[in-house]
């Protein structure tokens, strides 16, 4: 095959009146899309290599660069779109599975955008969060069925809880899938704003133990980097069953990314592929899951809440009920738009269900069964802004997980090439040349700023509704109204249509 039928996705435009030939773009593009032509003394570009990550655009000191969609059109066809055709060319050339990074980018309905929030008018006063106290503190974990008080004191101990200043956490991203500098940024930001970050299945690097009280340590099917100190190191433990971007499949970290430090942290030989099996081979039922939950509790003297993370799939309500009964303290549900460092394209784009529907279904089911207090619900899978957070809490979530938004705060431009290991922003890469581009001090400040900004906005929205504690919004679906939704969808979401 001497001719490739693949054509560029993007076009690099350089304004020659502005280009000063500094070659900053040449040095910044790890895809080597820009190059210096010594003979002509000009910077030139190879469009086919560009992935539209905007690194060169942001760094070009004269703003000489623009990246456009490549203008080449196929004959218009609503069925056979350019991306569909190009995918076939690629597979015809390689014979392989199509891989991608980040979350589902297909135009499925986004239910958050069909839900509207309430505000107070006349009959009840709204609250100004700048003048009056507003409580966002959140405790995650099993709540007792009833509180027994004698002589003004609690008689029974409250099960272990995770304490959050804001009902937002950074969700699982492993060392290996993202760089150590990216994790350091998130860990330090979590410490600063009083929330949690999550190790993912990559183990805990030695430099990160100091962030223990803001860490959720994950135990996934590969059991990478899991040992007693690791389990003790965090504030909570999370069993990862599934991930929204690729429900039903395990993880795969290619050997090239397993350098010395990743290998030490994961406890696997350098240069070997880190393959997490699709299922946990010791969990084939809810009873098996219960055994692992209690083994982990036993290993940590019942001092830490145990979370179970699952992908949102068809039978989610029944599965969640089983997990609650198996003894989990927190259930984390990841919707079908959740991000990933690498996933098969067809799985990412076609498997799972929207988090909004999954959350509503699970919250309703647990309430009906009278076991809602036994678990906290954390949802993730494309929470894009503070309004999504508020809507999720009104639908029944105790807190949300964010990962894509957190990475965007560090500089991610959603080019979806995390799987290539050439992340120009120093995030989804282990290449030392690229990793050092992300200064963890700057990263921590940016990620912390994001959470603080959302915190202010959440308070504004709550105040507008006349609510002064996030606790009063939790599961308060009367604060939501649906627009442009079918009766059935409204029914599942448990919200009234706007106007009713």
């Amino acid at each position: 095959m001497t001719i490739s039928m693949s054509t560029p996705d993007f076009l690099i435009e350089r304004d020659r009146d502005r280009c000063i030939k500094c070659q900053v773009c040449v040095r910044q593009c790890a895809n080597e899309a820009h190059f210096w032509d010594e003979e002509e003394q000009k910077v030139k570009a190879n469009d086919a290599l560009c992935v539209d990550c905007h690194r060169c655009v942001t760094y070009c000191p004269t703003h000489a660069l623009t990246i456009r969609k490549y203008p080449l059109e196929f004959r218009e066809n609503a069925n056979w779109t350019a991306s569909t055709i190009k995918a076939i060319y690629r597979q015809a050339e390689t014979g392989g599975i199509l891989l991608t990074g980040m979350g589902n980018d297909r135009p499925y309905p986004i239910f958050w955008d069909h839900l509207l929030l309430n505000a107070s008018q006349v009959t009840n006063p709204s609250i100004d969060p700048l003048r009056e106290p507003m409580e966002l503190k959140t405790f995650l974990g099993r709540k007792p069925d009833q509180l027994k008080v004698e002589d003004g004191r609690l008689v029974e101990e409250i099960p272990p809880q995770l304490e959050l200043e804001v009902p937002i956490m950074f969700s699982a991203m492993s060392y290996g899938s993202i760089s150590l500098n990216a994790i350091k940024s998130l860990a330090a930001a979590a410490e600063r704003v009083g929330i949690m970050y999550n190790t993912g299945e990559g183990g805990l690097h030695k430099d990160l133990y100091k962030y223990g009280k803001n860490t959720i340590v994950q135990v996934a099917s590969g059991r990478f980097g899991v040992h007693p100190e690791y389990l003790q190191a965090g504030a909570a433990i999370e069993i990862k069953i599934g991930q929204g971007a690729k429900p039903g499949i395990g993880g795969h970290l290619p050997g090239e990314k397993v350098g010395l430090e990743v290998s030490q942290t994961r406890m696997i030989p350098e240069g070997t592929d880190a393959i997490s099996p699709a299922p946990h081979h010791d969990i084939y039922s809810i009873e098996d899951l219960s055994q692992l939950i209690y083994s982990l509790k036993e290993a940590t003297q019942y001092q830490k809440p145990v979370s179970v993370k699952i992908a949102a799939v068809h039978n989610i309500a029944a599965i969640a009920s089983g997990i609650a009964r198996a003894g989990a303290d927190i259930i984390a549900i990841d919707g079908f738009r959740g991000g990933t460092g690498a996933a098969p394209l067809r799985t990412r784009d076609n498997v799972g269900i929207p988090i909004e529907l999954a959350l509503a279904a699970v919250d309703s089911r647990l309430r009906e069964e009278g076991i809602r207090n036994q678990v906290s619900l954390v949802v993730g899978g494309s929470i894009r802004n503070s309004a999504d957070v508020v809507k999720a809490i009104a639908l029944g979530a105790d807190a949300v997980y964010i990962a894509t938004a957190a990475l965007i705060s560090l500089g991610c431009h959603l080019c979806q090439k995390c799987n290539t290991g050439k992340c120009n922003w120093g995030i989804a890469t282990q290449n030392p040349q690229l990793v050092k581009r992300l200064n963890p001090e700057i990263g921590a400040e940016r990620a912390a700023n994001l959470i603080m900004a959302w915190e202010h906005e959440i308070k504004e929205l709550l105040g507008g509704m006349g609510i002064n504690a996030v606790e009063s919004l939790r599961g308060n679906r009367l604060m939501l109204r649906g627009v442009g939704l079918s009766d059935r969808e409204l029914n599942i979401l448990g919200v009234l249509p706007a106007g009713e």
Partner: protein
Amino acid sequence: MKRVYAREEICGGCKLCEVHCAVAHSQYPNDIIKAFLKQKTKPIARILVEEGRPISFALQCRHCEDAPCTKACITGAMQKDPVTGIVANDETRCVGCWTCILVCPFGAIKRDESGHKVASKCDLCATVGGTPVCVQNCPNDALVFTDELWRR
């Protein structure tokens, strides 16, 4: 005295410090495009990014306490200011003999042959005042301007 310290562990080697240094010391200090496209000779940066991937760091004159270049200078053009501590080259007196280049232990002096042949080196942006432009423009905070000895 305040000096510029490089943080090698987070320098990405973009060389934006070089670009902005060159502009600040050109005929068009406020117009980056004109500095490079209109000025007859290519503007010269007085900071130099040393690279051996993945290591890179920006280097400029250390403004040594006991600066060898000031001693070697045959015309007295290279002087250390007793008040500010800045080692500066008086280009009206410099004859371009490059003796200073030979003795600088850091290789921080460059030849400027664009006009009157002179030695070109970092002046800590003393003429601009405030924080040197390389520090101001480093996108990753990999340059620090401080009077404490910088330690990681």
